[in-house]
């Protein structure tokens, strides 16, 4: 009982906290996600952290909140060096993080979630904790049903609950990672009001986002990350163009695909509406012709995967129709889509793409359509060898896929796609590949488009999108805009990804 009164007093009276990161490095295998980030966040401010997909924002914040430990570098809180081994330790020292997708327990009730991570107490005094929760929620104008299960709350309400929970645990520094992707405009306003109030009470807030407008309107100062490094720091009254340049660099990449001969419509979406538990893409119209390449841009999880999976027949639209080569495929099972000539390549290589424990030849045999009863292993191995050569995979037909390196797994995935599909849907087709392999893969893909294959792909690399697509669909919290790439600049694309024109 005593401790909880204590933690309430934390919320009210503890002074603000200064955060310093010094030369933070973090590697994931060969990927250098953070390459020496140094950053100071003044106490009691709202600080923006801006950057494109894969710029290293989330990694940096996970390091700061104890989720990841840095390979090198130092974290200082109020000038004192600290080292966290878990998020619990970070929260105990005052740093709490709100993740992009809420890390809560949907099956449990609101109060139970609120109490998770609290210091242990043998018998719970629910009444007391409930009034504590109520009081905190009221103070920030949050409203949610204390008796509900978290499952029934909206994403916005779940965020509010998580904020209150972290505050009750004594967080003085609150990190919010892309909090506005899946919440309503009203909830966003509530959230921003609450964040202002928090800084007035002396809390330090770090707001991670790729949305230029939000960062500009909300924060007093912004740090821009690109490719794992700090590329600039500015007060937020600096012009938007400056920020875009910091995010995307000065590169003069311009879309070059201007004279592509397009054929018959291969994919037609009409009033296509799809939703999952966090967002909804509404009334999408899209026509993709034979030979056309369409890139999907935007923050990951803004609706690209939904639409791609909808086009593959893996998700059924709640309204609207989908046609493939003039044939209405709405509501048909996934296997019919495969028969109709749709190839789908997932991003998760060993999660959904390849089958660990099976060889390349076995994978090849699995892709065979309408196979005979017995497998002709000699023929399969020969075919596999051909593909291994064509796609430059470092491995044998008898190599187990988990024994391949990441780049080779990616090439293996590509090699398993049907050789002449009508429509190719690809999540991050060149992720994890070096420049040379990327070029090689795109040459193979473009050869297919010349024979009439239409390609839809997601990518978090704006240059790749601009270089390889005829059109780009920009996804922004479930909303979609189309952009013609011919002659368009990276700057222009950057602005759109940052939300220009969506408000």
């Amino acid at each position, binding site marked *: 009982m005593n401790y909880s009164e204590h933690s309430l007093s934390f919320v009210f009276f503890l002074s603000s906290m200064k955060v310093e990161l010094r030369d933070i490095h973090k590697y994931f295998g060969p990927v250098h996600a953070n390459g020496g980030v140094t950053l100071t966040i003044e106490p009691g401010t709202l600080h923006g952290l801006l950057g494109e997909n894969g710029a290293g924002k989330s990694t940096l914040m996970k390091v700061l909140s104890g989720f990841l430990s840095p390979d090198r570098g130092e974290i200082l809180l109020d000038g004192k060096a600290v080292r966290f081994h878990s998020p619990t330790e970070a929260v105990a020292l005052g740093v709490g993080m709100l993740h992009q997708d809420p890390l809560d327990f949907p099956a449990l009730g609101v109060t139970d979630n609120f109490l998770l991570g609290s210091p242990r107490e043998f018998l719970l005094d629910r009444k007391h904790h409930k009034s504590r929760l109520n009081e905190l929620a009221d103070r920030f104008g949050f409203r949610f049903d204390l008796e509900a299960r978290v499952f029934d709350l909206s994403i916005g309400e779940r965020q509010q609950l998580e904020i209150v929970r972290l505050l009750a645990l004594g967080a003085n520094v609150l990190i919010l990672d892309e909090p506005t992707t899946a919440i309503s405009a009203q909830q966003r306003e509530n959230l921003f009001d609450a964040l202002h109030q928090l800084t007035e009470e002396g809390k330090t807030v770090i707001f991670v986002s790729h949305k230029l407008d939000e960062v500009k309107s909300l924060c007093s100062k912004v740090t821009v990350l690109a490719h794992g490094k700090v590329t600039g720091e500015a007060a937020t009254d600096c012009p938007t163009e400056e920020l875009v340049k910091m995010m995307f660099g000065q590169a003069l990449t311009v879309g070059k695909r201007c004279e592509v001969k397009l054929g018959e419509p291969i994919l037609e979406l009409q009033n296509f509406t799809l939703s999952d538990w966090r967002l909804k893409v509404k009334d999408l119209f899209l026509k993709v012709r034979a030979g056309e390449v369409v890139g999907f841009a935007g923050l990951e999880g803004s609706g690209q995967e939904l639409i791609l999976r909808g086009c593959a027949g893996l998700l059924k639209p709640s309204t609207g129709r989908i046609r493939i080569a003039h044939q209405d495929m709405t509501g048909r099972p996934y296997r019919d889509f495969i028969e109709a000539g749709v190839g789908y390549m997932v991003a998760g290589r060993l999660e959904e793409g390849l*089958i660990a*424990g099976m060889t390349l030849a076995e994978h090849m*045999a699995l892709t065979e359509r309408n*196979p005979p009863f*017995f497998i002709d292993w000699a023929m399969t191995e020969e075919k596999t060898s051909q593909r291994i050569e064509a796609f430059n995979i470092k491995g044998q037909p008898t190599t187990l896929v988990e024994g391949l390196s990441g780049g080779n797994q990616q090439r293996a995935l590509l090699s398993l796609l049907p050789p002449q599909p009508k429509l190719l849907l690809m999540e991050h087709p060149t992720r994890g590949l070096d420049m040379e392999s990327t070029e090689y893969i795109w040459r193979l893909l473009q050869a297919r488009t010349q024979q009439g294959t239409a390609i839809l792909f997601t990518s978090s690399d704006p240059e790749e999108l601009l270089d390889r697509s005829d059109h780009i669909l920009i996804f922004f919290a479930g909303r979609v805009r189309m952009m013609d790439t011919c002659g368009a600049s990276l700057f222009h694309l950057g602005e759109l990804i940052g939300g220009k024109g969506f408000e």
Partner: protein
Amino acid sequence: MNNGLIQRILLLRISAIVLALFLSAAILMMLSASPLDAFSLILSGAFGSWAKLAYVMTAWAPVLLCSAGLLITFAAGLWNIGIEGQVVMGAVFATGLMWILQDSFPPSAVLVLAALAGLSGGALWGMLVGGLRRYGNVNEIFGGLGLNFIAGSLTVYLVLGPWKRPGIGSTSGTEPFPPSLWLPPFRDFQASPIEIILGLIAIASVAIALRGTHFGLQLRAIGKNVKAAFLKGIAVDRDIFLSFGLCGGLAGLAGWILIVGTSARHNLYPLISSGYGYLAILVVLLANLKALWSVPISFFFAAISMGSLQLPLQRQLDSSLGGVIQGMLVLSILVIHGIRSRWLRREG
């Protein structure tokens, strides 16, 4: 497979067997029995005479058939605990058909038709598990367990009710079938080669199917990564349903053997499956999905099961000690396997 690997695997298996014997000996000593005496009793109980060997064979055949079936469901990553019920339903269907046809067809035809009936009975019960999983969202472990109880109760009902012996109703079973409806012995040897051959053929076919057919490959893909298998366009639901049906069919055939086998009791009685299905689960676990390993392992297990029947006859020990030894064996092998993979992980 290279020699080093085979040696390592053999070494592991042997050390697990030693561990299992050691643990079983410890339990026997706690019961103040001599472990050596008990082990030699089990050995002589299994191999001491031709008649005893025939009993071992009689137990081996159903375990072989059940193992063959379980290799299919295990490959697809399914825990077909319902195999016991599937054996029982095979026996029930076979018995029912023989009751109806025994006077109107020649015995050999009745035997063959009964085999088909047993097969369909088991397959039906297996597909019920698959159907519950697919349409009722019932995990196959719980569905199978439930259906095992239902199958067991059904035999009790049949034995005491509609199929009871004339005059008396007793749980000792239905009226035995005449010797013309038994599988023929091999000269004086009281086990029919047909039983063993069927079992071996089943194992061999499953081994070939898992390795050499598209269906087998698809099942293995489902077992290893169901999401990826689905994305590759494999009809996951259909294949899972089929694998339950096939496993149940083989189990049903085992049930048929428990009725018509040379040394069987030739009637339907409660608990007719005698735990052979569960025993086969242990066999397949030990074989670790390597189909051919399950041949010697199931023989070994059948020998322990039959040999341990001597324990209560000659000493004041319970025959379930055989089960204890089998259980110890499986646990030791799994533990040693688990420790090994932990080492491997640590080595990276």
